[in-house]
């Protein structure tokens, strides 16, 4: 059973939340983030190359231009591989655990699995970022030493969104 809705994040980009229901004990939530925009990519490349050309006219050394091209390529590859998240998935399996997968724009996938025995609760946390209040979903982990303590707070999705949509999403998982 599948279901898709769209929201917007704090920067105004479009997010799509897809919910899949495999069985009474297994559900998946898939959040698709806004893609890399051509406009920002062109802007950054042009800035870097104009700066390099300016330096070249000062120094008359063509190595600067080759270095600028190299830096742009490496920077883009690094950004796609390490920073730009394409899709985040949350898979909840009853009595087994919670699995969070982030897939990056270059195809890399990084997965974390938290066993159900370690999860204390799932909460919505508020944070003050610059001039706004943002909400993010996070998992509280139990402390192995102290039974009522909390060892770690793990944010679920790296893209924060506004409160109302998050509450709806949480109510569905509930």
């Amino acid at each position, binding site marked *: 059973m599948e279901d898709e809705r769209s929201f917007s994040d704090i920067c105004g980009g479009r997010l799509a939340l897809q919910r899949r229901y495999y069985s009474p004990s297994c559900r998946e939530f898939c959040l698709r983030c806004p893609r890399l925009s051509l406009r920002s990519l062109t802007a950054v490349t042009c800035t870097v190359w104009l700066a390099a050309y300016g330096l070249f006219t000062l120094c008359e050394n063509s190595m600067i231009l080759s270095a600028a091209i190299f830096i742009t390529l490496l920077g883009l590859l690094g950004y796609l591989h390490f920073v730009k998240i394409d899709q985040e998935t949350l898979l909840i399996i009853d009595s*087994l655990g919670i699995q969070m997968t982030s897939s990056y724009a270059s195809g890399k996938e990084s*997965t974390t699995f938290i066993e159900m025995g370690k999860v204390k609760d799932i909460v919505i946390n508020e944070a003050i970022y610059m001039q706004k209040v943002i909400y993010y979903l996070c998992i509280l982990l139990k402390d192995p030493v102290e039974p009522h303590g909390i060892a770690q707070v793990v944010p679920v999705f790296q893209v924060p969104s506004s409160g109302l949509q998050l509450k709806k999403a949480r109510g569905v998982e509930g």
Partner: protein
Amino acid sequence: MVLKAFFPTCCVSVDSGLLVGRWVPEHSSAVVLAVLHFPFIPIQVKQLLAQVRQASEVGVAVLGTWCHCRQEPEESLGRFLEGLGAVFPHEPWLQLCRERGGTLWSCEVTHRQAPTDPSAPGEDQVMLIFYDQRQVLLSQLHPPTVLPDRQAGATPASTGGLAAVFDTVARSEVLFRSDRFDEGPVRLSHWQSEGVEASILAELARRASGPVCLLLASLLSLVSAVGACRVFKLWPLSFVGSKLSTCEQLRHRLEHLTLIFSTRKAENSAQLMRKANTVASVLLDVALGLTLLSWLHGRSRIGHLADALVPVADHVAEELQHLLQWLMGAPAGLKMNRALDQVLGRFFLYHIHLWISYIHLMSPFIEHILWHVGLSACLGLTVALSLLSDIIALLTFHIYCFYVYGARLYCLKIHGLSSLWRLFRGKKWNVLRQRVDSCSYDLDQLFIGTLLFTILLFLLPTTALYYLVFTLLRLLVVAVQGLIHLLVDLINSLPLYSLGLRLCRPYRLAAGVKFRVLQHEAGRPLRLLMQINPLPYSRVMHTYRLPSCGCHPKDSWGALCRKLFFGELIYPWRQRGDKQD
């Protein structure tokens, strides 16, 4: 709780039979280890399971039946399988079935007794989790969960369900020792049933390692006994030995070699990895050292180096002389105190003259010394680099001396100034109370004190300038030595074996697991595929890093600046175990 059945992927296409494995009641999971095929005699099966239980301390039992129907489902087989539940009593009894070409799976759970918990749902939900038996057997979870007692079937409830699964599979190696070519009473299917995995090279190495380790361990103990003899503890040799970084590095390598060739077996996997990493580090070191050796000794490079060394030392001394002449004049437009300037300048110039004569005396022997020093590279690149660092320290000894003279003079001046400044204000330092107290001085004390204070104050710029110049030179030399030490540290502590393992066999070092939902049909149990999630490279480095020499800067930046300001001597790259000056 949902019942989880862990099923090995190697048994997915085998014939029908019994499911053999372990039931973990706390997590409601059934870990299937192997499939036992027909025909079998129940008594022999029970005997085999009792043997396995005793040998591996894992509570293996018959968990249920496995039915693989390639064509139409057979009615008679179904009833026969149900009857087996009476022969091998187990609570709960699983009946796994795979039909018609492989996409339709079903699993039924029967409870013999009534459920103890009246609020539990009447129908059990079952989840099938497929796992790669070979990978789970060979992998190691990080952080390692320590299971305190190895009693049959006892698992503390606080450990995770997955750690229990990994532990069960790892400890049941006894069950996987027989393959289908063995003439045993029962026929099992597991990951090794097509043939037990072994390597001739590994077996030969294992047989040979015993006597080789014994021989080398005795040789190394002889070497360490020689090194620990009384002669080296006497004053000149022990002082020189503690100052030279080469001796420290040699000692470190000797420790490593003793660890590698010790005849004691590694107790747990962490010690085994440590040994393997040490072997890899030593091999890399020796390989790089031999490369350096072949490069140095080819095309008479040592001759060129020796020929270039004396002119370079001369050049450095000349530059220092120019620097001192500049300081003795009017450096940067500052006006120095003529008399003190001349005294200090001439004193340092004479030092340089002595140093140059010494270098010229040594010049015929330099090539021979360098040739023998180059040979030391066969002990390892780290030894060669430590020797290089020591040679730099010896060649720039005059800079070190100048720095010490300048620093001592400056330090004395600063202390004198601070004490006389207190006198100027009518105070004094109370040693007993460790604080500044007021004090009434006599007139002649005040007079002489003020005079001395004025003299020291006006001589301060000269001394401070000499101190500044020589401190900068010393810091430059220290920075070069520090870089060399960092490189040596890197080679010493890099866990090459662990990094190679992570690159080539990522399932061996597991940070956790990840699940993938397989094709699901309504009414059928949920099927998941469990894969190993490998450890990220940063955690591999952090966990398996070898302990280094300990040559790290002891002072923070703030403390360093404070010491420089007050003229205290700085030794930022102190070796461990040295006494503070």
